[in-house]
């Protein structure tokens, strides 16, 4: 049968497709910022008839309603691996559950005999089919195929704006059970200006600026989030997304970048995590003067694609997949960067569960992983997930794996970047010991380089006393005396 006929036969309205979901089903939502929208709404619209539907997804960007209180009997949400700003209130209030696995190991459990996790229904966004009947999962690939393989029924939302990228990103019409055509409206600059016109002028300007810097499919979501926040909150999210360098902490980030830069050589292959300060390092000269860099990472911080365009990242000296830059997702790219990456053979996209595997990562010699830390204790335990003891801010994401992959790589370095203080300089991020409940993302025997605005602490192979010395020397001077006193108690008689 010609795929065109098959496609036509499988085409449904969102309401028809949503009827596939039964009470007690496990449903999974693919992708990240490109999560299907109309299907989530259509399923949530059935909240009164559905009971005990389990919803699995990572880092939600829209909420059809099940992240709000009140729908718990109909929908039980479990987040996998990453939380993100939209779901954070629901996690903080402990209304949703959370799977704290890193990317490459979650799927391992689901394949074990007796432990298999099957999804009854999987919804995912794809591009329209090409002439051979292949749809593209698009540049926000993440786990789309990995999850699809474990689902009984697959519903694809076909988005005409979905861009094609190379790598292993396609799915054939014959593999999908139902298609729903829905192309979300992309807000124009004028529409955004109209939507914010009643807000205070400073907030208006901020939202308009940030919206123009975001990938177009994110505009509506971010507008929704921003309109509920004050200017400081908006700036904080913009910083996390790497949109603009925050003025208030510019000096600190510049300091971190200067020290960080000393660890980078030409020919290194690197991975840079989303978030602050990591997402600014390369834009503030952290790689200045280095040539023939390589890239292998699940995510793209803003500016990395530009380094490829400008020829600073060539992948020429990569020992694994030379000449190619490897990604799992294009979130973080600017609109211009995504335009450059689409259908560009220099960019290849693969499933996260493969990209982040330590034994894949380490096949690149001189692999450098660059991740953010929230706090580190004097023995070298690194926390990137919780604040004030046990309050979860984020999940582990791919951090443990990228970190390990870099350590296992010949000549590799695992770099954790962080500001020395938080909460306006009142709290040291280098602490004697973790408060109870603080989650350890990287254990101390795998801690390597910690970079703050005050320097580089080199922990690998060091003893407790040496580590304390290294870490105190990169702590904020205001806290050093106190830390020294505590270190004395912990490590000396």
């Amino acid at each position, binding site marked *: 049968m010609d795929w065109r006929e098959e496609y036509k036969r499988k085409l449904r309205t969102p309401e028809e497709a949503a009827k596939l979901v039964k009470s007690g089903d496990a449903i999974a939502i693919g992708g990240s910022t490109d999560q299907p929208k109309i299907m989530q709404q259509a399923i949530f619209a059935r909240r009164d008839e559905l009971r005990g539907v389990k919803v699995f997804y990572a880092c939600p960007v829209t909420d059809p309603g099940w992240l709000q209180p009140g729908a718990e009997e109909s929908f039980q949400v479990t987040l996998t691996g990453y939380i993100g700003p939209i779901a954070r209130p629901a996690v903080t209030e*402990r209304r949703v*559950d959370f799977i704290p696995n890193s990317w490459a*190991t*979650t799927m391992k*459990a689901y394949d074990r005999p007796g432990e298999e*996790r099957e999804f009854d229904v999987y919804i995912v966004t794809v591009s329209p089919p090409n002439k051979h009947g292949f749809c593209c999962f698009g540049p926000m690939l993440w786990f789309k195929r990995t999850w699809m393989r474990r689902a009984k029924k697959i519903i694809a939302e076909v988005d005409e704006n979905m861009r094609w990228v190379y790598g292993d990103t396609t799915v054939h019409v014959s593999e999908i059970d139902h298609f729903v055509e829905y192309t979300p409206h992309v807000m124009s600059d004028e529409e955004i200006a109209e939507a914010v016109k009643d807000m205070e002028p400073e907030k208006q300007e901020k939202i308009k600026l940030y919206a123009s810097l975001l990938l177009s499919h994110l505009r509506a979501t971010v507008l929704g989030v921003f309109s509920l926040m004050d200017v400081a909150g908006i700036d904080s999210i913009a910083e996390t997304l790497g949109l603009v360098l925050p003025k208030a902490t510019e000096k600190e980030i510049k300091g971190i970048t200067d020290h960080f830069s000393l660890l980078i050589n030409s020919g290194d292959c690197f991975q840079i995590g989303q978030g602050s300060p990591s997402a600014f390092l390369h834009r503030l000269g952290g790689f200045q003067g280095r040539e023939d860099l390589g890239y292998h990472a699940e995510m793209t911080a803003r500016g990395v694609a530009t380094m490829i365009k400008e020829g600073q990242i060539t992948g020429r000296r990569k020992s694994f997949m030379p000449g190619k830059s490897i990604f799992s997702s294009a979130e973080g790219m600017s609109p211009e960067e995504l335009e450059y990456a689409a259908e560009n053979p220099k960019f290849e996209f693969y499933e996260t569960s493969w990209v982040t595997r330590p*034994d894949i990562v380490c096949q690149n010699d001189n692999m450098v992983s660059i991740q953010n830390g929230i706090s580190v204790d004097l023995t070298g335990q690194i926390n990137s997930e919780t604040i004030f003891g046990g309050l979860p801010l984020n999940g582990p994401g791919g951090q*443990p794996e990228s970190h390990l992959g870099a350590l296992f790589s010949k000549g590799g370095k695992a770099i954790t970047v962080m500001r020395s203080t938080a909460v306006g300089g009142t709290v040291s991020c280098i602490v004697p010991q973790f408060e109870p409940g603080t*989650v350890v993302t990287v254990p101390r025997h795998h801690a390597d380089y910690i970079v703050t605005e005050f320097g580089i602490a080199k922990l690998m*192979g060091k003893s407790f006393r040496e580590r304390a010395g290294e870490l105190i020397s990169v702590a904020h001077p205001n806290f050093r005396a106190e830390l020294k006193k505590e270190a004395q108690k912990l490590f000396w008689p």
Partner: protein
Amino acid sequence: MDWREEYKRKLVSAEEAVKVVKSGDRVVISLAQDLWVIPDALFARRDELRGVEILQGVTATNYPWQQPGYEESFIVNCGQFTGPMPRQMMWDRRGDFTAVTYAMEFKDQDEKRPGYIDPDVSIVVVSPPDEHGFCSFGEAMWEKKEFVKRAKKTIAEVDEHRIRTYGDNFVHVSEIDYFVEATPHTPSQEEWDQLWAERAAQLGPEKTQKLKEAYEEANCPWYEVWKFKDAMQVIDVLIPFETMYTLTRQTVLSVGPIPEHIKAIAHYVNQLINDGDCIQIGTGNTSNPLVRAGVFNGKHDLGLHCEVAPPGIPELVRDGVFTGRYKKLHPGKAVCTSFWPSSTRRQHELEIINENQLFELYGSNYTNNVNVIAANDNHVSINNALYVDLTGQVNSETIPGFLLWNGPGGQMDWVIGALNSKGGRSITVLPATAVGGSISRIIPLMEEGLMVTVPRTYTDFIVTEYGIASLLGKSQRRRAEELIAIAHPDHRAELRKEAQKLFWP
């Protein structure tokens, strides 16, 4: 030059050999070796030496520099493990500690990172040379060959009792700078009497008699009792007598009935192992007696790729339970970096291993390399824990108050290696309670001072005497449920209350 001449030329007294150590030197002593004369000779120079850093592995002997009062002469730095002997020193914060796993141990040196330090002097125990001039590190290889390679000077104590093994467990006479022959002598009756008299003075006659009987029951060769004479000094000081007595019988001597909780854990772990699996099993108070408790009963064609193999494994290799038939890497060979023969059957086990082609020993940086581990499909790692919290974080190193119980060892290498292996599983075993049942080892969240050995992202199966908790891929709530179900029944209500607070609205 013939190696025999070279050997003769390098043969010196212990006093002569330790002259090579200078103030400020870094001296490395790998773990699991019984040095009989060099430590005392080095310690004798305490008044002339200043700031000698001693990087030492876990040992059964009580190195003299671990006592208080010599900190200016010797800076002790324990690597990877502490073990019982330096525990008091660590709790007094007199010693330093280096937390690194075996897979990463030489990364900074191999890659010539700025500031890396090569050791100045390494001290090892070896067997006498064979006809080609090669000595063996015996049943415990670890990083000794690496240390010899990296140190500027190497002193070797030559012990006639050391066995030889295959694998990479060789060092040539030409690679060593000084030989000191020190085959331990059989203690005289007076020395025996003095040993037990010392214990009686410390523990009282009743406890001493009990301990003596345990050693007699084990029919221990004198060598073993003598080796543990130092270990006995810490009884009742750091560890209550009853606990130490039980652990000594169970873990060190492998005598007496197997405790019920160990039998139960062995039963559950047995369910997680399939024919043809490649096994790593750690040494520890829980995992050691598992072998004797029949954890591998009824299994066929297992493979061994291990760090330190606990007592009983050599017999299982000889008897064909471990054949290595399905191993992809080193098929047919039992691979590890060290054996820990039980004291009771030490000679028996060493005879099985000695010059036997079935056994191959490699350096710990090779056995623990995660890519090497993952090269075998269905790799199962079995390791110990002190505490597990409800999110799945595993601690096997410290007890509350930031008191070091042990170090990370190679645990994390094996957890990752097993998870990277196709079909692999990582199992953590622990009794549900501590301190006679009054404390649950399954706790709501890690307390201050409890180090995280395995982050929750990598925790897989947890086994107690109450069953199996499977955590990989599970959400927080399901992890909590799984873990509470294997906690001691007396502690479940409390844990449920805490879990409710942590993970539900």
